[in-house]
């Protein structure tokens, strides 16, 4: 699953919705295996609009879980979305590599509220709950 997907994944347990710890999930950096797929094309206009919909603090947390602490503390903002300058493009290119080209192919993630562990296998996260939690 793409790094970007982590921004849209919370714990499936309904009871955890009342806590603020069910998102983002916490990723076990020692068990997560990352891959980069350079065949996915860079589309700056797409990415700028995606960024509007992203929770930056969650990006920072997951990146840190996975050993990347070099991101800017605040979400990048672009003066004029319709004419992106060189600097904007450089930032977007980096984010494209992180959010779109990088995926977690094997790994584990945990809810910080209930502690339930979910697994990623062959790039596919499984968020199904065992019957007693569903």
């Amino acid at each position, binding site marked *: *699953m*793409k790094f*970007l*997907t982590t921004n*849209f*994944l*919370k*714990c*499936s*347990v*309904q009871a955890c919705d009342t806590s603020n710890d069910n*998102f983002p999930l916490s990723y076990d950096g020692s068990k997560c295996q990352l891959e980069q*797929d350079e065949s*996915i094309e860079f*589309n700056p*206009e*797409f*990415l*700028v*609009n*995606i960024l*509007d*919909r992203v929770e930056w603090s969650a990006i920072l947390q997951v990146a840190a879980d996975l050993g990347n602490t070099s991101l800017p503390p605040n979400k990048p903002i672009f003066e004029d979305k319709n004419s992106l300058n060189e600097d904007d493009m450089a930032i977007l290119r980096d984010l494209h590599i992180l959010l779109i080209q990088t995926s977690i192919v094997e790994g584990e993630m945990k809810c910080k509220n209930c502690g339930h562990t979910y697994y990623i296998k*062959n*790039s*596919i*996260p*499984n*968020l*199904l*709950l065992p*019957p007693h939690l*569903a």
Partner: protein
Amino acid sequence: MSDAQLKEQEYVHDVYNEIASHFSETRYKPWPIVTDFLMGQTMGSIGIDVGCGNGKYLAVNPNVFVIGSDRSEGLIGCAHGINSHYNVMVADGLHLPHKDNTFDFAISIAVVHHWTTRERRIAAIRHILSKVKKGGRALIYCWALEQKDSRRGYHIGMDQDVMVPWVLHATPSNSNNSSSNSSSSAKGKKHDHEKPDLTGIEPKDRAAFVTKWKQEREEQRAREKAEQDDLEKKNDDKESTTKYRFYHLYKEGELEEDCLQAGGSIVNHGYEKDNWYVITEKQ
């Protein structure tokens, strides 16, 4: 688990997992109104496809980010195999692992009819809408009761809760599954020792040794043959296996009613490919 959940496990989830690869081969053509809905989304918007199956709608519009989820691990595996760039996950449609008020749009094509009670179908639509932003829209398709001209011939007046057969043929594309593999290896098993190895056997004991060796070999062959017959029988059985899936066939106006009950407003509705569809908007 409740009765409804048990029924869905047996007559929906287990079946989709069993028929996944075969089912996936029949699902590749996007329906026109679904395509229009997806193409109408703006650049860089985000959406969910609940019950995405093999993911046939996930790459229709390359300029949106769609997360597809399905309860069937088998079908999600097929989706990933078809296109490894699809964003897919295994999840239940009533327990979606997304925050509320997040997505610009949602689709759920031919899924809601699989919940076995009206309460659960409405809850599923409400749950999908909960993940969409205010003013966001969801396109929902359900199988129609009114399909007199289709192969199945469902029509008004019938019971709306039906068991729909899926005949599972053992096609060549299935031949890489484990049982036919072991069957062919049993068939092809070499008998390495066609003659007994008499080295170190006293001449006086040789006759008895050979007799025992022959007997053991016969027994071994009989075992292998029985094993092989068993496997072939299994494969034959599989050729004619019929699996039943539960469907609630929607009658005209019913899906609109369920969407209203779920708290959505009706933006558009109609009939396409033996299905009723509704575009419902989050208030």
